[in-house]
């Protein structure tokens, strides 16, 4: 399956970004082959609506799951509408998070954090 991980950098070795809407990058990885694509997140510097646009990006990229730290209410609405699963990652590299997901070690997120939590985070 295709999973998007919010990332602080542009490779599998980079740390996961705990923010979803304002993450600098998304690494979109195939959990079977570990092949991946790097997507720069234009919404990281958006004036507003970053979560919504980041959510739209997940839909446009056809991902089935997201690994991130926290997720805001608007992003949650968009991902929920598209039935995209959301997992709480750990403070580690993107690669380690994908491996943990494959082993079933990541918890699914059902609660949001307040709006704008990712600003200046």
């Amino acid at each position, binding site marked *: 399956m295709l999973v998007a991980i919010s990332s602080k950098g542009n490779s599998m070795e980079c740390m996961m970004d705990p923010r979803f809407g304002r993450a600098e990058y998304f690494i979109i990885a195939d959990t079977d082959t570990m092949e991946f694509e790097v997507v720069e997140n234009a919404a990281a510097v958006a004036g*507003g*609506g970053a979560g*919504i*646009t980041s959510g739209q990006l997940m839909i446009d990229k056809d991902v089935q799951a997201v690994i991130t730290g926290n997720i805001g209410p608007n992003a949650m*609405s968009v991902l929920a*509408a598209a039935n995209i699963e959301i997992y709480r990652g750990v403070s580690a590299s993107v690669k380690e998070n994908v491996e943990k997901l494959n082993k079933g070690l990541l918890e699914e997120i059902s609660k949001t954090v307040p709006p704008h939590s990712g600003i200046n985070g």
Partner: protein
Amino acid sequence: MKVGILSGKGGTGKTTVSASLAAVVPSCQYIDCDVEEPNGAIFLKPELKEKSPVKVLVPEIDMTKCNFCGLCAKACQFNAIAVVKDKVLVFPEICHHCGACKIACPNDAILEVERTIGVVEANEDGTFLQGKLDVGEPISIPIINELKKHIKEDRFVILDCPPGASCAVVNSIEGCDYCVLIAEPTPFGLHDIKIAVQLVKNMGIPFGVVLNKASNDNRSIHHFCQSEGIEILMAIPFSKEIAEGYSKGILPVEINDLWNEKFKKLYEKIEGGAHK
């Protein structure tokens, strides 16, 4: 003439000065543009008889016509729309009511529907107006625009602005003949008055400074104004008497005649400054 009272930093005395001017200038009009927290009414005690809701237009999707092409979401500069396979999510609080989505839709599937975001209130003769943004609403501009439609051009109009120097302030002082910048002599006060000065200069509006909570211990605003060639129109001292009055909703001009005279002089200076 229209005068905007702004400050950059909050809590420097915009409303004290605005309401005091309103109290001493005969047949003027006072407009509270600080629609997130209007408080001029506490001092001026108007009888608010007129109340009209402020409405904005937000998109609603006609699902019988939508083919989920996603052009509306792409057109939205504020990220207020997401198109999810067979659903379209609209986030009305984020919408800036520009109508671009409606123009972008090739299938005429977007309707615009009214949404109330606040209220404009006025006294009977329209000499006191205030706007109130509903709690949780992030965009105040439509309410300020609505307030400004009621400006009485033949009067001395006082626009009590929101704090800061962002859109809401720009919108409030646009079209003003003069601005009064309220400054307090603190490091934050100095930092923010510099931003407010840049703003009014960029907008080409003549202005002067009123120094509030003035004290000989800190003359940073004096020094700044001197070096920039900015006139200090008036200095209100750091005074227990004024603070006590304020805490009870009493204006300096109601405390004694001295302040009444001083604010009348301020009015004359503003009139003079605008016609230079």
